């Protein structure tokens, strides 16, 4: 796409001195960096590799499910495969990718800061990610666990497969997550540029902030719970073993106390991205800023009280089921608020249909459908039939892949110019987006129907009548995989050969676009003073220069 001629911004220029080549180049300068942008890029690379690994496991699973009986692997391998698919996708990709990848790169840029509050802790967070990933990987190579990523006791305390390294890997990854969250909370509170009150913060920052709250409050619970399973495996103390008076369902309560908020750790950053993409590509301010901002906090808060909806058929009392059911529905309300506000943002906008926006389109449909099937599951009596079937699998993949992965791809394309200084080929971008959206539908809509038919999840072999839909699902997954491969190829090519982007190819009013592409290591040579809200497009002639000038020394709003 041709950037419009801006009087103050000449022909698209590639910033000669930027964070990629300053203050130093070479591997050691990256491994020892304190620059949030470099750390963000390293996270992006690592999590994308993890995504590819998890995706490979997914394709193998779908291959096995082409026939009712054995297809390409034996049952024990299959059981390990879906366990590792879940572990890798959730702990190594979905939870870190947007917060630690894009969040790290963008949050300081968006609030006018030079870095995050604790750059060294940020680097530590990355190394903890690597160490946790290596430990979990060692467990996988050593055979891998076969418990499912949910590690239910007593199976997980008794099985002979290598559960402990995976649990320890997840434990270490948890600390990476906690440190990232801690960093963002302090950064948001203390490092906003003068003039940026809370109500002028980009919505991306609001959502990342809400995510960070969940990260620091929920992750320790998971850490302790996984540690208890490790100790039980090692010493057979019986914390969850009925032989010694233990309660296996207690594990489920502890596990889901983290893992349900965890899904909001995954979805809130996706919503963060979408808020930015919607505004930029409709060249319009968000319809209801306060509603969208507060709904992020609402999701984070209410999300802590809904974990019991994973235990409707576990023998808990009907009263508990009722409480968790109704609270789960409230979370759906906050999501609905966001969906309506995003859609209303398009009204009287000026929409350029670029690749990031194409992913927003997919995101919108999949979030509404996936989210409402979530509310359907929370309708307690319906969940009795659906629990632990492919209906649930389809529901969460609609959100995790349909919403979160789409948002990830939108973010990748939207901020590619800012991170690399180059653009990607827009035509290929749209082709891949269409393939992915179509492939996604064919992969997961059949799974809703399989769930209705009664096919349970984690099934290696299945009754004949389930085969047709399984074949359809695998076909869809193949299209999805091809689409993703296309993206990988053209993005890698664009790293080297993409057209130079300039500081603001999208003509966005987001604050991060006020910097050159790629940005300099110190972000802003002079601390900016913020004079307008984010995505302020109204009436402004967008060819005016970005709002940034040398500040007078003045007390800052915090």
């Amino acid at each position, binding site marked *: 796409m041709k950037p419009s001629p801006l009087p103050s911004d000449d022909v698209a220029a590639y910033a000669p001195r930027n964070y990629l080549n300053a203050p130093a180049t070479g591997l050691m300068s990256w491994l020892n960096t304190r620059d949030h942008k470099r750390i963000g890029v390293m996270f992006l690379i690592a999590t994308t590799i993890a995504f590819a690994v998890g995706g490979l496991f997914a394709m193998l699973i779908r291959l096995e499910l082409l026939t009712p009986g054995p297809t390409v692997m034996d049952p*024990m391998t299959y*059981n390990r495969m879906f366990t590792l698919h879940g572990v890798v996708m959730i702990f190594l990709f979905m939870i870190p990718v947007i917060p630690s990848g894009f969040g790290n790169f963008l949050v300081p840029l968006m609030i006018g800061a030079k870095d995050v509050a604790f750059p060294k802790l940020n680097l530590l967070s990355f190394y903890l990610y690597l160490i946790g990933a290596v430990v979990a990987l060692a467990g996988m190579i050593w055979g891998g666990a*076969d418990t*499912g990523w949910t590690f*239910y006791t*007593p*199976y997980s305390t008794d099985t002979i497969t290598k559960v402990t390294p995976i649990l320890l890997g997840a434990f270490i990854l948890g600390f990476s997550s906690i440190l990232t969250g801690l960093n963002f909370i302090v950064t948001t509170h203390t490092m906003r540029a003068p003039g940026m009150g809370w109500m002028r913060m980009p919505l991306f920052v609001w959502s990342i902030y809400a995510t960070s709250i969940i990260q620091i409050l929920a992750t320790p619970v998971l850490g302790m719970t996984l540690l208890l399973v490790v100790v039980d495996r090692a010493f057979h103390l019986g914390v969850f*073993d*009925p*032989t010694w008076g233990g*309660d*296996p369902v207690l594990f489920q309560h502890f596990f889901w106390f983290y893992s349900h908020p965890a899904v909001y750790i995954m979805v809130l950053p996706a919503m963060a991205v979408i808020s930015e993409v919607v505004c930029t590509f*409709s060249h319009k301010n968000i319809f*209801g800023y306060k*509603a969208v901002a507060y709904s992020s906090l609402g999701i984070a808060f209410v999300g802590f009280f809904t974990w019991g909806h994973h235990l409707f*058929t576990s*023998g808990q009392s*009907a009263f508990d*089921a*009722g409480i968790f*059911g*109704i609270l789960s*529905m*409230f979370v*759906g*309300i906050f999501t*609905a*608020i966001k969906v*309506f*506000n995003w859609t209303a943002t*398009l009204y*009287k*906008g*000026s*929409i*350029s249909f670029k690749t990031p926006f194409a992913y927003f*389109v997919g995101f*919108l*449909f999949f979030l*509404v*459908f996936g989210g*409402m099937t979530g*509310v359907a599951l929370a*309708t*307690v*009596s*319906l969940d*009795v039939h659906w*629990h*632990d079937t492919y209906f649930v699998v389809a529901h969460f993949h609609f959100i995790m892949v349909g919403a979160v992965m789409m948002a990830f791809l939108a973010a990748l394309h939207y901020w590619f110019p800012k991170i690399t200084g180059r653009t990607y080929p827009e035509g290929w971008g749209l082709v891949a987006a269409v393939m992915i959206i179509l492939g996604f539908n064919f992969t997961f809509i059949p799974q809703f*129907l399989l769930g*209705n038919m*009664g096919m*349970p999840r*984690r*099934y290696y072999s*299945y009754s004949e009548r389930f085969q047709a839909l399984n074949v359809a699902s695998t076909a869809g997954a193949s299209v999805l995989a091809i689409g993703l491969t296309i993206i990988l190829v053209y993005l890698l090519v664009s790293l080297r050969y993409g057209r130079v982007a300039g500081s603001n190819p999208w003509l966005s009013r987001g604050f991060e676009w006020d910097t050159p592409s790629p940005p300099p290591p110190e972000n802003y040579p002079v601390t900016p003073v913020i004079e307008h809200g984010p995505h302020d*497009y109204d*009436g402004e002639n*967008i060819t005016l220069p970005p709002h940034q000038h040398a500040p007078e020394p003045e007390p800052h709003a915090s």
Partner: protein
Amino acid sequence: MNELLRRILFLPEQASTYAESVDQLHYFVIITTMIAAAGVFGVAIYFFVRYRRRSDVEATPRVRPKAIHEVLFIGVPLAFFVLWFAIGYPQFVSLQTPPKDAMDVYVQGKQWMWKFAYPDGPSAVNTLRVPVGRPVRLLITSRDVIHSFYVPALRIKMDALPGRYTQAWFQAEQPGRYEIFCAEYCGLSHSGMVGELVAMPAAEFDAWMATQRRGIVVSQDSAPTEGEHVRPAANVVDEGARIAAAQGCLKCHSVDGSRHIGPTFANLYGREEKLQDGKTVTADEAYLTRSMMEPGVELVSGYQNVMPTYQGKLAPPDTAAIVEYIKSLRSSASRPGPSEPPAYEAIPAPK
């Protein structure tokens, strides 16, 4: 209408009395979901086209929401969600509350099969026979890890937990055969743990039950009837369960860990029992067999000496079967080695 929607949504037949009302709520929720998704999407598509960017320097107005917008954004979904909850929750409560006159069946999930037992009646592996038109209450437990008893056609599901009983109930509407799945991952053969629910007309069921009780069919109910799919039968353990029920052992000895007139059978095998005279004994094959023959000799501390002797009532194969049954009632997944035959002294002649 019900049938049409059921087929479109790929739902199984509605084989229980509450299946249809559950499905009706399902239709309501799903149709609303689809309308909402189509609605949002449709509006979005309209906006994409109507407000597409026409020039590079277009500006946009600042549109501010009015309070009514946010009220609608919150109120409309909330109204639907609360309505669904208001219908679904009472439905759930009724799914969890068996009628008073329900017939009990014990269900035990174990890696990787289902075992069923009727109180005072036969036991079976992987095949559950129930009468049509009568409510049935399932008392479900597990021998090892967590399983989940799931019959899609009935819309019933309940986890099988080690160390406790959970319950679920249903009433079959019409005769038929329905698949039973395990719906909680339990290891290698999780997907192989498939059973069959056979709903028989009530009269047929009563006749079958009477035949079973008469002991004519000595082995358990995996003897296939015509056209029935044969599943692998269990071994002497089920025989032991049947005998223990028939001989009245279960009247004094519980199988779920609760203390009753006699020590519980749950986790009894291998337990260190403290005897009344202060000595400790391991409850192995020998001890268990001795206890059946001479109950008062090695009495567990804290219990009354009221157990009758089964000498003469139980042949050696029967006592062995009961011992195997007791051995099977362990909640830990770790298994001891194969059982040694009971090694006991010759039973002294009655005094």
